């Protein structure tokens, strides 16, 4: 597999927004990475499904209540797009996780592990390594 997974780059791939070099690199990665190919299929499928949805005309007054005055100055088609975007974003927000972001403090967890392990294991070989000044990320 070439490099890290594509993740957000997949959207840009589908949009044909990648620079030529980045597109070549992404293509090489996709050739080797089954996980990213699967992810690409999922994203492409979701986009096709949403595009296949019928267009609904909002009831009278819906936009007036939803959008600020400045937005009402936009052309009708643009207003409809904005309304749909807002509705989609709201729907998407329902699916978005609400738990907090977590970044485990790895040095502290290593120390916790060594402390526990050294109580029932060999204290010398368990504790000496955590006295080594290791900076993650170097």
């Amino acid at each position, binding site marked *: *597999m070439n490099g*890290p*997974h594509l*993740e957000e780059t997949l*959207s840009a791939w589908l*949009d044909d927004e990648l620079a030529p070099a980045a597109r070549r690199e992404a293509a090489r990665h996709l050739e080797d990475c089954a*996980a990213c190919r699967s*992810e690409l299929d*999922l*994203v492409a499928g*979701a*986009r096709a499904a*949403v*595009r296949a949805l019928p267009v609904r005309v909002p009831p009278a007054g819906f936009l007036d209540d939803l959008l600020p005055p400045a937005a009402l100055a936009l052309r009708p088609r643009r207003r409809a*797009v*904005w309304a*749909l*975007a807002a509705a*989609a*974003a709201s729907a*998407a*927000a329902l*699916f*978005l*996780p609400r*738990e*907090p*972001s*977590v*970044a*485990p403090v*790895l040095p502290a*967890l*290593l*120390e*916790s*592990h*060594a*402390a*526990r*392990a*050294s*109580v*029932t*294991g*060999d*204290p*010398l*070989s*368990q*504790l*000496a*390594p*955590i*006295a*080594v*000044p*290791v900076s*993650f*990320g170097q």
Partner: protein
Amino acid sequence: MSVVTFGRIGLGLGVVLGALAGAVPAGAGEGAAVALLERAREAAAMETFAGLVVVEWHDGRRSRRSEVPVQSAAGVFRFGDEVVGSGARRLVRGPDGWLTLWRHDVVALGPSPAAKYDLSVAPGPVVAGRATEVVEVRVASGTAAVERLYVDGDSGLILGRELLDARGRPYRSLRFVSLSAGAPAALATPARSEVEAPVEAGRVNAPYRAPATLGNGYRLVGTYEKPHHVLHLFYSDGLHGLSVFEQRGHLSASAMPAGGRRVELDGRSVRTWSTPAGETVVWESDGVVYTVVSDASRADVAAAVGDLPHSQRAKRVRRVAEVVVSLFRWR
């Protein structure tokens, strides 16, 4: 270095086992190996010594090496200026002073290493000027050794320990390069410390999980709750420890330290860091962030990770939501 006589501060099981170990013939079996390992645990707490330990490890990119001064006297051992142990207390120096990370005895010792490994004892090399016996650890009889422990024939201390790759090369090791009796008469434990020791956890409720066994013979021997609602599960195979930390939330990959590697373990995407203390693996599954830390072999860590939940569902839903929103950029 001349042979030195260690000051013993106590007699008991260690001495009895030591006498037994002293009679270990070349190529002795599991019983002798288990006795040596038991004796080493006792010896570390009873002997009086000072020495220098070299720690070497491979972080996935290059080999690294560091030295740690070690002292032990009257049941207190000290590693550099960073780590202190006394009885069941374990303290580390944090940015704002000493932290107590552990402070109570543990009754459940875990399984015997002989239940999982094929252990043998043979005469070892001289380490730090002292004759050793080497405990060779194999996954099965007749296979290549996966680990070696070098035990001082006199004091019973483990003077060296190395984990071996498939070609028999150490990828994580430590070894005394000097060792002598006559450490300071007493080593002080920090008078004040902030306590961050975990407490025993009761029943584990969803979304947390606590499998009774993991991977290649690891048995759950302790369930603890740390500050900030972190669940700490401790597993043992009798020779190594494996900790699973579970935190509710979503992994903030951008806030994780650099230097880790993104790898596929059995088709599962995780981030790993190799440190002198062992392997660390982090991933998220269904709203829980899992961190596995272990001094075991990489193969054992991978097997344990494979037994823990690993779902991409939340990530995929988020990705689909992002796509839905991004659709409107093109209209």
